């Protein structure tokens, strides 16, 4: 399949800022690379868990967290490459059916950390259609800030099942906004926020 050029002009930082603007007590997990920087740039918080590795793990960290905290809402913010590595996770999450988990894929259609190689979403793979086929309660592709602003407040509320949003963004590389790479520190800060002892 021939790579297709991305038509989006939406800045990824503006997209993530719009997604998180109405955030209340939403717990957020980020996928490695730019989504981690984007969420950090929107404001470092104790209820963020940033991944710097473990590619393919973000949505599933979100699932384990959502199952452990059924009264809280969980948002995973990750990239197209990271989610593509966890293609099977769409089946696992749909089968588990958490009502308090949403996944937002910041989709620039490229592997931005490694030289901007075109990813599968740049070659026609429609991740939202895959999620819909898997049985997610909601699955949509968003292309501008108005569409993001329309769904962002709903992430504070539970739904009928897991939700999946692809947000098409430009393949730009804004300056890195880097949280701590100390996974133990971030873990203990997150757990303390939920009232659990460090360790």
């Amino acid at each position, binding site marked *: 399949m021939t790579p297709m050029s991305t038509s989006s002009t939406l800045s990824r930082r503006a997209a993530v800022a719009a997604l998180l603007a109405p955030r209340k007590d939403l717990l957020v997990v980020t996928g490695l690379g730019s989504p981690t920087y984007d969420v950090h740039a929107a404001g470092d918080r104790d209820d963020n868990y940033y991944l710097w590795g473990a590619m393919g793990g973000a949505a599933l960290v979100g699932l*384990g967290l959502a199952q*452990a905290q059924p009264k809280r809402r969980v948002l995973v913010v990750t990239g197209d490459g990271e989610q593509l590595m966890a293609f099977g996770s769409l089946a696992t999450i749909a089968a588990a059916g958490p009502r308090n988990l949403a996944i937002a894929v910041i989709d620039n259609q490229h592997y931005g950390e490694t030289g901007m190689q075109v990813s599968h979403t740049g070659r026609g793979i429609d991740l939202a259609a895959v999620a819909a086929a898997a049985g997610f309660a909601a699955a949509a592709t968003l292309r501008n800030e108005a569409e993001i602003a329309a769904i962002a407040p709903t992430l504070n509320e539970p739904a009928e099942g897991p939700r999946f949003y692809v947000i098409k963004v430009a393949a730009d590389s804004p300056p890195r906004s880097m949280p701590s790479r100390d996974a133990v520190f971030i873990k203990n800060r997150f757990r303390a926020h939920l009232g659990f002892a460090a*360790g």
Partner: protein
Amino acid sequence: MAEGTRDSATTWPAEVYRTLKAAEVRQAAYVPDAGHTALIDLFLADSEVAATVLTTEEEGVAIAAGAWLGGQRSVLLMQSSGAGNCINMLSLPVMGRFPLLMLVTMRGEWAEFNPWQVPMGRATQPALEAIGIRVMRADEPALLVETVGAAAALAYDSDQQVAVLIGQRLLGRKKW
């Protein structure tokens, strides 16, 4: 196989289940293995435990980290072929010092019928140790229950990443 051995070979899943319940395990993720059948059924029937079927084993490593972030203890069930699938994802519990308890049923090491099980069976322990997982092993049912209890304490109380290998000799010959 002696009669008494066969009896304990059928009761160990229930004893392991009771051990994990006593350790307050609230999530169980699994890729099925014949050796885990009874334990999986016990978790599926338990409304206090979220039992998650996986498409591939490394998903469960990430779920376990998320569960701990949310204050819950979990267990991950797989056969030895799945241990290889987990290797890079194990960076997460190793770097984050997340408690991790994996119960791995062994293939390819005792009266194995399928030669394709042999390479990963041979690689399971060294591969897990290479990425930083503590490996414990049991080949007798009574020792297995004790080992799972000790591994659970190491994981949840001492923030260790532990795999318990369940010997194929304990599981018995696969019926074809």
